[in-house]
Every structure is written in structure tokens, then in C-alpha cells.
């Protein structure tokens, strides 16, 4: 049974979720089922993480043809690039079921489906399969926002759905184009990554296909200026959905770029890397500045998350191993910190029935444990050394400086920008005089503490002893950079070279 572990991780939640949605199940039962399934997935995930040795390419491979005539196959596998994303998608979910215990059954059912679909998207090694999971993972989000969201949920849900599906349909066109290109090259349709990465694409069509992919991922990440769906969606969505969107789904966008765009479109990628990097940096600053002035707790965190995604995405476009590793690492680091932040926010919202920052105050004295947890997550998200956030951010900045000094310097401003809005938020919510809305605020219960504590510990551990994680992802990152090498050489002769030259003369 455990020999096709990935399928199990994908379809156990999906089937269970569909069952919960279709059959008459009580909410308690639904929650119990969801918790059980997610815990199982965690166990499988840990098994994969421990038995994974990053030396070779894909591991835990499953492959069986789906549609021969088009060469579409059910092809799963994990490698260093997908491993940590997979972990993020696998490990964090039980928290939701433990923290939010009184939701409708649809809430839990959709959560299960979205988890399964996201794991599928991460493991898929066939583009069409990937696309299927990619689309499927949006639907539960659509329903969750629409059913359980805030007052303006309709607008938000329409916007996110049409925005993202529009992007992914363009990607579909690009995917089919790739299959066709393979058909032209070899007389054989195929959508398998290993087959497609061998293609040498050129010409405007290839560039357009590249754009198609990039748009889809840029919307999902989101990269500036495709982020405009994000604030509404994050703000209106129920906590769990915001958690899913920010902690994992956005990362899958980043993952998609690394996994599919870089190997297939290496030339186009190298050519436009600078522009993309700029959009990453600009997005980081833009959203960081916008975050400062938000009145709504959740909206501010939404912008902050978008800001971090900008810097994370930047890591891909720098095309050197430090930045890439930084990104892959930051994917998990940010998933944990942001995840915890949004979940805590959900708890705070439940307790105080408000999200307006000015209604808060003095939570630190009312709920010290909550405050400490939030503080740790916050420090991780502003990249304080000793927390997981620092490693990735530093590596990305380091790589960015090698790639292009100006970009690097701009990227480093995240150190300041992030801390500005975060501290101000922390001041207004947790410090100062207690407000009347928070007068009866009570601290985390034992279960809540025990639920969140592991992640908090993980944040610290990943900051102090990251090497085990890095060892898993380094080989893959090295391989990819090596594959990019000659293209990078072309790009470097353009921009990123001042430093090295200075180093020589």
C-alpha cells in the first residue's frame, strides 16, 4: 500500500472530502475525518521526507499512461525542488482542524479537497496532470470564500476565480503548445516534464508560451502587478482559506516557475529574468508600503504576505544557487510563519469579533502566550536571525546582489520595510492600553497552544539548524543551476557582472 505513497497522499483527502461534501455527514464527524486524514497525510509526508535522498532526480515515481494518443500520463514524483513545498502542503493542515472546531462540514470537506489537489499539483511530473490539479485546487477556494467568507465575499470570489482561471487557461494554451512542439520534434505527443525539458524552443511562439506560463504563475504568486485580486480575497476569505492561499497555494506558484518554466524555457527565462526580478522587487516594496497604511488587520497581513512573495519570487530570477536555494527554503519558512500568523489572526478575530487594528490594544498583557507566538512568527517573517525567515531572505539577497547589484540593494530594503509595518501593527494590537473590545480577551487554550507550538519550534529550529533541510534541496538546486549555466553566462555578461569583474581587477 505504501509503495504508491503519493497517490495516497493525493486521493485520500480528495476522496474523503468529496465524500463529506456529498454524503450526509455531521460537522463533528466531518472535522474528525478531516483531522484523521490530515494527520495521516502528515505521517506519509514525514515518511517521504525522511526516506528522501536528494542525490538522484525524481523519487517515489508513479507512472501510468492516461491518454496514449496525446501522451498524457499519470506521472508523479518528488525531487529536491518539490520536497519542501510538499512538506508545506502536507504538514500544516492538522492545525486548521484543531483550531477551528465549529465550522460547517463543507468547510472541512473543501479543505480536504484543496489539500489533496495541492499535493497533486506539487507531485505531478506531467504538465497536463499538473494543470488538472492546478485548476481543481482553485474550486474549493472558490466555494469556501463564497460560502463562508466575509460581507464582500462575492466580489472577492469572482475576482480571484476569474483572475486565476484566466491566467491558468493561458497556461493551458502554452502547455498544449509544448506538447505540439514535442510532436513536431519527435512525431510523438508528450507532456512529461523529462521529455519537454529536452526541447529547444525558439521564436516568438516559444516566447508567447513562456509568457503564458509566467502569467499564470505570476497571478498565483502573485507578482506585481497581478496582485490586485489578493487583498480582497485574503481579507474576505475565511481564516482557513486565507491560510491555504497564503501559506501554500502562493508557494505552488513559485514552485511552478522553478519546476516548469526554468527547465523548459531556459533561454526566454534568462532573457527576461531581469524584468521579472524587477517586478519581484517592486512588488515587495509596493505591497510593503501599502501594508503600512491598512486599517484592517487581515488586509495588512495580506499585503505583507504579498510583499514577501515578491522577495521569494525574486530568488528564482537571480539564477544562482544561493538565491534559488534561498527561495526553496523561504517557501517553507514563509509558509510556517505566515501560516501561524494567519491562524492566530483567525483566533484573535474569533475572540474579539473585530479586525480593525485600532479596536485592539494590550493583548500582550491579556494573552501573553498568544503574544509570544505571534511575536516569534512576526520576527520570522521580518527575517530575524535565529528564525527560519533569516536564512532564506539572506540567501536571496546574497544571490540578488550577485545577479545585479541594484536589484540586490533594493531587495535588501525588505529588512526595513517589513519591520516598519510589522512593529507598528504589533504596537497597536499587542502593546499600549487594553481596549474595551479586548477587555474580555482570553489567552490560548491548552489545545491551541499544543497545536501551534510545534510550528513555532520548527520556525526556531529551521533558523538555527537549517542544514538538514538544505542538504535535501541543494542537489536539485545545483542541477537546475548547472542546467541554466550557459544561459546564465549569457545573462551575466550583460548585467550581474560588475561584482565579479571588480573581484578580478
Amino acid at each position: 500500500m505504501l509503495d504508491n505513497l503519493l497517490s495516497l497522499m493525493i486521493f485520500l483527502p480528495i476522496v474523503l472530502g468529496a465524500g463529506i461534501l456529498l454524503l450526509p455527514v455531521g460537522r463533528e464527524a466531518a472535522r474528525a475525518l478531516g483531522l484523521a486524514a490530515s494527520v495521516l497525510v502528515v505521517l506519509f509526508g514525514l515518511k517521504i521526507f525522511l526516506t528522501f535522498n536528494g542525490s538522484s532526480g525524481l523519487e517515489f515515481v508513479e507512472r501510468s499512461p492516461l491518454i496514449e494518443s496525446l501522451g498524457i500520463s499519470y506521472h508523479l514524483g518528488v525531487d529536491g525542488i518539490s520536497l519542501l513545498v510538499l512538506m508545506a502542503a502536507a504538514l500544516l493542515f492538522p492545525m486548521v482542524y484543531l483550531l477551528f472546531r465549529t465550522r460547517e462540514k463543507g468547510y472541512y470537506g473543501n479543505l480536504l479537497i484543496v489539500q489533496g489537489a495541492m499535493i497533486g499539483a506539487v507531485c505531478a511530473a506531467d504538465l497536463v496532470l499538473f494543470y488538472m490539479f492546478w485548476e481543481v485546487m482553485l474550486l474549493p477556494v472558490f466555494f469556501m470564500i463564497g460560502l463562508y467568507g466575509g460581507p464582500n465575499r462575492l466580489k472577492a470570489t469572482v475576482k480571484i476565480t476569474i483572475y486565476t482561471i484566466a491566467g491558468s487557461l493561458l497556461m493551458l494554451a502554452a502547455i498544449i503548445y509544448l506538447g505540439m512542439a514535442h510532436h513536431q520534434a519527435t512525431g510523438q505527443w508528450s507532456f512529461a516534464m523529462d521529455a519537454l525539458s529536452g526541447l529547444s524552443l525558439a521564436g516568438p511562439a516559444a516566447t508567447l508560451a513562456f509568457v503564458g506560463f509566467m502569467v499564470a504563475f505570476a497571478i498565483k504568486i502573485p507578482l506585481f502587478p497581478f496582485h490586485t485580486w489578493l487583498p480582497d480575497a485574503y481579507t474576505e476569505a475565511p481564516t482557513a482559506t486565507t491560510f491555504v492561499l497564503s501559506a501554500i497555494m502562493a508557494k505552488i506558484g513559485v514552485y511552478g516557475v522553478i519546476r516548469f518554466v526554468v527547465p523548459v524555457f531556459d533561454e526566454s527565462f534568462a532573457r527576461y529574468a531581469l524584468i521579472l526580478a524587477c517586478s519581484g522587487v517592486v512588488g515587495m516594496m509596493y505591497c510593503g508600503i501599502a501594508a503600512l497604511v491598512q486599517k484592517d488587520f487581515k488586509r495588512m497581513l495580506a499585503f505583507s504576505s504579498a510583499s514577501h512573495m515578491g522577495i521569494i519570487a525574486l530568488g528564482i530570477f537571480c539564477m544562482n544557487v544561493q538565491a534559488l536555494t534561498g527561495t526553496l527554503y523561504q517557501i517553507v519558512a514563509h509558509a510556517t510563519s505566515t501560516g501561524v500568523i494567519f491562524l492566530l489572526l483567525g483566533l484573535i478575530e474569533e475572540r474579539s469579533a473585530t479586525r480593525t487594528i485600532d479596536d485592539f490594544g494590550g493583548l500582550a498583557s491579556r494573552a501573553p502566550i498568544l503574544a509570544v507566538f505571534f511575536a516569534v512568527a512576526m520576527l520570522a517573517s521580518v527575517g530575524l536571525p535565529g528564525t527560519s525567515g533569516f536564512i532564506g531572505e539572506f540567501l536571496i539577497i546574497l544571490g540578488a546582489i550577485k545577479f545585479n547589484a541594484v536589484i540586490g540593494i533594493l531587495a535588501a530594503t525588505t529588512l526595513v520595510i517589513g519591520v516598519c509595518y510589522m512593529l507598528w501593527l504589533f504596537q497597536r494590537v499587542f502593546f499600549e492600553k487594553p481596549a474595551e473590545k479586548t477587555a474580555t480577551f482570553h489567552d490560548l487554550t491548552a489545545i491551541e497552544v499544543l497545536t501551534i507550538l510545534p510550528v513555532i519550534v520548527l520556525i526556531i529550529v529551521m533558523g538555527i539548524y537549517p542544514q538538514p533541510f538544505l542538504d535535501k534541496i541543494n542537489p536539485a538546486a545545483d542541477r537546475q543551476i548547472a542546467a541554466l549555466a550557459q544561459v546564465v553566462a549569457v545573462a551575466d555578461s550583460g548585467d550581474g557582472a560588475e561584482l565579479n569583474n571588480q573581484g578580478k581587477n
Partner: protein
Amino acid sequence: MEGNLSSLGFIPLLPLAGALVLGLMHLATCRGRLISERIYALVGCIGPILSFLLAVNVFFALQALPAQSRFLSHQAFTWFSVGELTISMGFLADPLSVLMLLFVTLVGSLIHVYSIGYMAGDPAFGKFFSYLNLFLGSMLILVLGDGPLVMFVGWEGVGLCSYLLISYYSEDRGNVVAGNKAFIVNRIGDFGFVLGMSFLFWGIGAEGFDYLSLKANAHLLAPTLGITVCLLLFVGATGKSAQIPLYVWLPDAMAGPTPVSALIHAATMVTAGVYMVARFSFLYAQVEVAGLVVAWIGIMTALLGAIFGMFQNDIKKILAYSTVSQLGYMFAGVGVAAYSAGIFHVFTHAFFKALLFLGAGSVILALHHRQDIWQMGGLKNKLPITYWTMLIGALALAGCPPFSGFFSKDEILYSALAGGHTGIWAIGVLVAGMTAYYTFRLIFVVFHGQPRDREVYDHAHESPKVMTLPLIVLAVGALFAGFLNLPAIFGGHQQVSHWLAPSLTEVHPHGSMATEVLAIGGSVLAFVVGISIAYRRFAGGAEQPVFTGFRKFAYHKFYVDELYDTVLVRPYRFVGQAVQRVIEPYVTDGPVRAAAWLYRMAGLAFKVIQVGYVRVYAIYMVIGLSVMSLVLSQSLNF
């Protein structure tokens, strides 16, 4: 040539463990205070004291080695390694770090003890000690780190603790704002630090990113890149050590409890910048330009701090500005490549400034948290120990021979003069005079003359042993620390300089006897002048003066804070508002909305065309048909 010493790892680890334990104890019991202060105090003080003992042990271990090979290091584990970059969580004990280590742990332990008295009865007693331990641990990582990146861990850690401790009384908005200010300004500095490190890495870091390897490869660094790196690192230093233009956070940082001000914002953390520059002496020695920038910014800061210090009324603010000013001295020292002098001043300054702050704390406690010097007066009979110890501290600060401050400061000024930086020397002497002036203004106003507020005076009482004891120890330090580096002219051997030599790249300026005399004479003269003016003005118990003109201007710190607010903070907020109100909806999201709107409108148009008259539909068909046939005949041309 370098040995291994695993005990190094424990020096920072002990306080950190203490912090963790205290923090958990506090969190576990914060609802009802089940644990007595004694236990907290005990747990809180074990860590620092043990680290101190370990430090002493390390010192002797190091001394046993021959002078040139005094390097003990300990690689705990590989922190992270990506591509060319390999960072190990390693600690390095060399003369420089051990010197820092000794006084940091010593002063730190003393202040822990002092805090037992000062914080007695505080609702969050445990939290305070947890923070204090955390700070000490981070500071020790900063000092012991064997490379820039490990140093950066401590660097940011102490920044965090400073934030936490400044906003310790978080109910009061002002404190929190001060904390934010400190953290953010420090972050601006760290921005420079990180960039500096990155550039340095891409320059010469590939072969190893710890001090020893960097020192070995320093000569490979391209000049332009070298300057960039040095200046960027110095940006970090200005942030942490409150130099122009980033000094603004330090005076506000006095919002924290007084022991914090003594430990973090006087003795240890704020000197980290100096330590860092000294650490990178091998770089700064290469590019004089960078050194000069450092020196001039330092001396200017010294001047500015002194000016501000002369017109403050809050006892802690005065000391804060004197700290800024003294830090300026240190940078002037390291800037003119007199690294040992700078570090020596750090060393002595730690004693007398910590002493002064703790004294001030004891005064404040005695007066039930009054800090305005114009409410005090004639306290020397009421608080004798505090008075005498603070007097020693003041003399040291003012640079009165043979107190410690005199030697260290004189060393710096002498190096400046000998190095040919006459301007720096002149300003330095001037500042020395001003220092003497404001220090004794403080002493005279607070302790001499008649009490200005009678009933405050009556309730005043000397602090408990646990607080006065550290004062005495520090006073001894402030008194004799100077003799550790007695220059030849007084028949000394400059032990400290020689001790530090292996880890610093400096050339000792060989000025003539005359220069040396001139230097000493200058500073002594300045001291005398300054103190005499202060005596004439305040010894007789003057009343609070009304500041006008320049004094008012200086009292308001040249309105620098207001300036920053209008030039930086408000515009930043404004941009944020603009993004939120205008750019987001109309520029970035505009196209999307426009497209949606267009789509709907087009839909309406088609509703109109769908008239419902069958005849019209027939006409559509015919029109379509004829258009198509027209195109057809065109394309097929028959």
C-alpha cells in the same frame, strides 16, 4: 596555529538557556505569580556569572599561548552551506574578543545583580530577567562569533532585546514608539551591514567567510569594492552605535528601565559598532578613505552629543547624550586606525558609564522615579555611596587623570594628533572640555547645593546593598581600569594595546615626545576649564535656567527628530496612503476593472441587436451572406 576550545560555545549558551527557562517559567505562571522573585533572580544571575567565570578561564587559556598564535576557536556545527557559501556556527576567542568578553560578562553580571534590587516588585520580574539573559547571550554571540554572519546573529539579537526592553513598560505608548524607533533605525543600519557582508562575500568570501580567512584574503579585495564594503559596514555601525545620522534612537531608548540603559545603551550593545570596525581593521587599514569618513563622523557625533548633553534636564538624557558623544570618540579612534585605543575606550567607558547610569538609577529610585535634575539637589548627604561612586564615574568620564577615562581618551586624541589629523584632535579637545562641563553640571546640580524640592528630598533614601555593591565594584573599575594601558610616558607598557595587537591590524604612530605632551596637556586643560565653568555656574545651587536662542535650539536637539519626521516618516506614510487610495484601485487594478466594464457594455450592445423581429434576423442573414460572398469574390477574383 589555532586550537579548539569547546567551552566557548557554552559562554553564550548559558544565558540563552537561562532566558529560555525564565521565559517559560514566566509564561507558565503569568496568570497568577506563583514563583517568588528570589528564584527568578537566582536563575537569572547564574547564567551571566558562569559565563563570566568561563570567560576568565578562556582568558587564561589564551594567555598561556604565545602572543602571535592567540586564537582559540570552536566550530559548533555547520550553520548553512550553499554553493560557495559555507557558514559554520563557530566561535573565536582571540585577544580582542576576550577583552570584550571579560567586561561584557562582568558588567553584565553586575547589572543583573543590581536589577534584583531595582526591579523588585515589578509584576513581570521574570520576564525582565529573561530579556536581560537573552540580551547577554546575543551580545556574547556577537562578540564571540567567528565571522560576520554569526556576529550578525548576535547583532540583530541584541537589537531585538533592546526593542523589547525599551518598550518594557508597554502600556505607555511613548515607550513602545521609542522601542519601534530603536528597532527600525537599527534595521536601517543592518540594511547596510547585510549589503556590506554580501559584497564582501562576493569579493573574497568564497574561500571562507570567517575573520581569519577574510583577513588572509583581504589583499585580494578590489579597492572600489573595499571602500563600498567598509562604508556599508560602517552604516551598520552607525545604526547600532548611534552615530550621525542614525543616533536619534539612543536618547529615546532611555524609556527603558535604568539597568537596561546601563547595560545595553551604555556599556555593551552600543559599542558593538566599534567592536565591528575593529574586527574589520584589516579592511579599514587597507582603505584610508573609509577610515577618515569613520573618524570624522565619529568626532562630529562626539561634538553633537556633547552640545546636546550640555542642555538637557533629564538625568538619563544627559548621560545618554554623553554616551553618544563618547561613542563618537571611539569611532574617531578606530577611524584614525588607533584600534586598540578605541577598544580601550570602549573598555573603560563600559565601567564608568555603567557606573553613572546605575548611580542615576539609584538616584531615580531614591526619588521615586523623578528624573529631572532640577528637582534634585544636595543629595550627597542622603545618598553617600551613590554620590561618591558617581563622582568617581564622573571624573573618569570627564577625563580627569588618573581616572580610567583620561588614559583611554588621551590615547585616542594622541593617536589623532600623531596621525596628523589635527582637526580631529582639536575638536576632540573641545569636546573633552564640554564633557567635563556637562558631567559636573550634573553632579553639582544633583548632589550639591540646597535641595530644590524639599519633600522629595525628605523621602529620599540610600538604595539597598544589592544595588550599591555593583556601584562600588564598578567604581573600582572606573578608577583603575586606566592603568591597564598606561602609556610609556607614565612608565607603563600599554599592556592592553600589546594584548590586542595580534587581532588588530594597526600601525602605532610614533609621535615625538612633544606631541605626546601636547596631547596630554590639551586634555588636562580642557578638563580643568570645563569643570571650573561648571563649578562657577552650578556648585552654588543654581535654579533651572530658561533656554533661549542657541541654547533653546540645542535643548531641542536642533529639531533633528522633527526634521526626520517631516522628511522621512510623513512622506513614507503619504506614499502609503497614495498607493492605497489612488494607485491600487486606479493604476494597478484599473485595467482589470476597465476590461470587465467593457465586456459588460459590449454585452448590452448585443442585447439591443437581438430585436426579436424575425424579418430583421433574415436581414442579418442576408447581410452576412452578401458580405461573405463579397469577400469570397474578392479573394477568388472572379
